[in-house]
């Protein structure tokens, strides 16, 4: 079982947004104002925390909070 609160906490730090503003359906760019650098920071923080390697080709498909939760849920 993945820790959704931890995922939102990591997103909050990487994107510098409030946790309460992060919904499962939030799009990183359109809703949370992230840019490519924020997303890279997020991915590397997720990799380190959850001890998982996210392939580059997969990163491009991770666009929402739910995408990250689903990916981690199936890979850790």
């Amino acid at each position: 079982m993945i820790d959704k609160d931890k995922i939102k906490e990591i997103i909050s730090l990487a994107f510098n947004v409030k946790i309460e503003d992060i919904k499962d359906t939030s799009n990183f760019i359109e809703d949370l104002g992230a840019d490519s650098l924020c997303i890279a920071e997020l991915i590397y923080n997720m990799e380190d925390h959850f001890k998982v390697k996210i392939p580059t080709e997969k990163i491009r498909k991770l666009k929402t909070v739910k995408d990250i939760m689903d990916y981690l849920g199936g890979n850790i």
Partner: protein
Amino acid sequence: MRKDIFNYELTVTLKDINMYGTVYFARYFEWQGVCRELYFTTLENYQAVFNDIALVTKYAWNDYKKQIHVFDQILIRVQNRNIKKTSFEMMFTYIDKKSGDVVSVGGETLIFMDKNGIILRIPDRITKELNKNIYVE
């Protein structure tokens, strides 16, 4: 062996000023570029680090605090802050050597990219070096 604080010294010359004696604002960014390059050359085996990756500027700024003039001698102190997994901010403090006044403060957010434009983690050995030289106001 690199010192923990990296300083670069320059003298303002005629090529740096306009007809009113004001230093071109863009000149500061050129100086920062020089500082940045020289800072990294002080790292051991720096060429190996930069063989396959590029250092890219994401954001740059400068706060011009006091006017400087031709033939002023300026010391630029280079330090780092906001060191993250993928970026860090290199800080440049410009000091008038004669008066000791801080005449300008600048910063650049820097990232590393590979040849395909993928943002990379900052190499561990670089992060270690950056942390030796933390910005102090």
